[in-house]
């Protein structure tokens, strides 16, 4: 009995430091943000804040720019996620039939963008999108498409940002789905072939349903990441032109650090988190994350 309680003390002692860091760097700031989003204050003058209640939360829904950034964030999330899932799963299926060694080398090449800092991804794509010497325009010119707006026109900027995001993060889906595919037993494919099922039929009736859990997981991870998007937009457009690429995270950042409206910025960022949780909570429930515990 004594040994039992001693070892549970030890367990607590092992868990405590990690929990303390998360509390200190996450829970405390979150609580603080909730409180300070009810005040009007400038950075460095927190004590002189004026209590405004839920004013900022109400203001969000009357602020055209805020509502637009919500729309931009939703479009970005849906489009980026859709393209990345389609290309990532598609390439994983193509890779699956290859000899092991070739597949390993190709995966190593394909996963490079994943390791590049988002600010550098921004730099790379700004260079490629440059209207005078960028590679994108040189190739578009060959097809007579040099009037493409690129990053500088509101109509096309968000699309260009999505392309850069697809470039960077599709490999993540490719890698995870590839390892998911290795868990599908070989006999299943044999059986499908004997039954005369063609390529597409096998893909949609057998392969994809069997890795449903994995697809759900990558959707959850990539979806929540896309909804929080900051870095790549900051590096490519900073939210412009004409707020056409303004995501919620960028808007909150700008309100806080450029307009010095910290209270409003915190309200926006908390609304971002709430919408994210509401959107993805149904997926979290079904994903294998919860099953692990």
């Amino acid at each position, binding site marked *: 009995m004594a040994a039992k309680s001693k070892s549970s003390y030890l367990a607590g002692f092992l868990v405590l430091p990690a929990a303390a860091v998360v509390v200190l760097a996450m829970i405390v*700031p979150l609580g603080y943000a909730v409180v300070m989003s009810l005040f009007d204050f400038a*950075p460095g003058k927190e004590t002189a804040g004026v209590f405004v209640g839920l004013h900022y939360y109400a203001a969000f829904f009357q602020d055209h720019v805020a509502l637009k950034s919500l729309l931009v964030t939703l479009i970005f999330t849906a489009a980026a996620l859709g393209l990345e899932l389609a290309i990532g799963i598609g390439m994983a299926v193509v890779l699956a039939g290859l000899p092991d060694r070739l597949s390993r080398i190709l995966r190593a090449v394909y996963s490079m963008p994943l390791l590049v800092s988002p600010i550098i991804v921004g730099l790379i794509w700004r260079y490629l999108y440059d209207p005078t010497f960028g590679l994108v325009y040189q190739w578009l010119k060959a097809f007579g498409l040099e009037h493409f707006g690129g990053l500088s026109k509101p109509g096309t900027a968000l699309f260009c940002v999505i392309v850069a995001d697809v470039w960077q993060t599709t490999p993540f889906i490719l890698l*995870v789905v590839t390892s998911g595919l290795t868990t599908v037993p070989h006999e299943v494919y044999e059986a499908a072939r004997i039954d005369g099922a063609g390529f597409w039929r096998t893909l949609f009736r057998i392969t994809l349903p069997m890795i449903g859990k994995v697809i759900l997981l990558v959707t959850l991870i990539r979806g929540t990441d896309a909804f929080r998007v900051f870095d790549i937009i900051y590096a490519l457009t900073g939210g412009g032109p004409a707020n056409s690429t303004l995501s919620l995270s960028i808007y909150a950042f700008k309100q806080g650090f450029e307009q010095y409206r910290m209270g409003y910025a915190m309200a926006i960022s908390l609304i971002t*988190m709430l919408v994210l949780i509401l959107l993805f909570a149904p997926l979290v429930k079904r994903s294998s994350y919860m099953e692990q515990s």
Partner: protein
Amino acid sequence: MLRRSARNGFKGILLLAFALWTVIPIWMVVMTSFKTQKDTFTVPVKWFFHPTLDNYSKAFSNGDFGRYFGNSALVAVISSALAVGLGTLCAYGLTSFGMKRSGALMNFFMLGKLVPAVTMLLPMFVLINEVGLLGSYVGPVLAHTAVNLPFVVWLAISFLKDVPRELEQSALIDGCTKMQAFRKIIFPIILPGVTAAAILSMQYSWNELVFALQLTNMDTYTLPVGISRFVGSVSVDWGKSSAAATVTMMPIIVVGFFIQKYLAEGTTGGAVKG
């Protein structure tokens, strides 16, 4: 038979196209970093040219890039050591003591993955400013450690689950304490996984922008912040920023080749085996 080879040909084209799509943008930057000003702006793009190291000497002499490099390495090493050290012990505590509420605690760590960086940064900036630590290494180290911890805990739990319980039990019967059993038996078995977790943590910290951007100052800028200052100015110095970008991304890409097996497993917290 003909149909089959047509399909294989199509597959080959797809694989090659995706490889080019992946490599060309990175190759462009590496190439630009070795180009002279004149070659950089030549249209169409010059694929063959006389390489020069001018951009590198410019970036490192008057760009303070040597210091940023040191700052990035320091922040990455300290925050990863903290995340991996505390996270691995925490995972052991959660899994091998039959704790009653361990499931709830695990979910508590999982929640950390849902908080947007900006939501964390805004209050953190105000609080760190209040205690006078803005511009020190404390801000980025704390933020990176906190972001990496949940992921390390989850990853370590998945590795610990693969270790047969009998190994620990027989060590305990032989007279080891719990901690001795962890140090001598369990830790060596999960070491490859822990190493991967450490490298992935470092990669996050090395590449992370938004926390470092607001919580550091001129003396403590990390590489991504330094690059963002280059890019942010009115006219981008492509040569210099390409050199800085190449120096920043090459180490992590090279390391990435060796831990490729763990990339899928690591980024999903061990839910998918690589």
